[in-house]
């Protein structure tokens, strides 16, 4: 897993917030949890249907203002509403055999192709070099 840092603009506080980001080359868009998106006053626009593993996933589009190194980017993202119970560690009594850790989007953002395509080839290579 590649983890990098970037900043996302918070419309409510009017400042950039540092985010830990998971780089996901298989994702078309950047993905942010609704619990964070709402807090940052990000405006959701139209619905979007995407394929996930076995069925369509209906999400809302959002525009993310992202700062990474010296660059500032306006990037297409989607907001995913994660079940509140998954935003905390699992308890011993839970029926579902979910992973113990909270959902990764509790404290992170996913960086998909909509962001990665905006970077230079050198920047992309720098990021992917973290896998080696």
């Amino acid at each position: 897993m590649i983890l990098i840092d970037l900043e996302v603009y918070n419309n409510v506080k009017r400042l950039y917030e540092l985010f830990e980001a998971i780089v996901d080359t298989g994702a078309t868009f950047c993905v942010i949890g609704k619990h964070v998106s709402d807090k940052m006053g990000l405006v959701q626009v139209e619905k979007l249907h995407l394929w996930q593993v076995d069925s369509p996933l209906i999400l809302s589009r959002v525009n993310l203002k992202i700062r990474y190194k010296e660059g500032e980017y306006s990037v297409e993202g989607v907001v995913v509403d994660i079940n509140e119970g998954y935003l905390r560690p699992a308890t011993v009594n839970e029926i579902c055999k979910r992973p113990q850790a909270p959902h990764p989007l509790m404290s992170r953002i996913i960086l998909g192709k909509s962001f990665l395509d905006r970077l230079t080839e050198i920047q992309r290579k720098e990021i992917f070099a973290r896998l080696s």
Partner: protein
Amino acid sequence: MGLEAREWINRHLSELRKSYPNKTVIVCEGMVVKALGEVLDPVEINEIARKLCAGKDWSYTYVAEQEEEYIL
């Protein structure tokens, strides 16, 4: 932005997993300055880190014990 702190986290992730399993850690100047037992969102983490690491390069991570095995 937390470039050096991020590098430090990525280099020390396996050690962090042993020392701070299932905690959110804030890293500044090559050390963990805060380990938080509760799970926080990035906005809450930024509020804490700005006070602890004002003007310094900092970063954070949630140190999941097993998380990477479970992401599709």
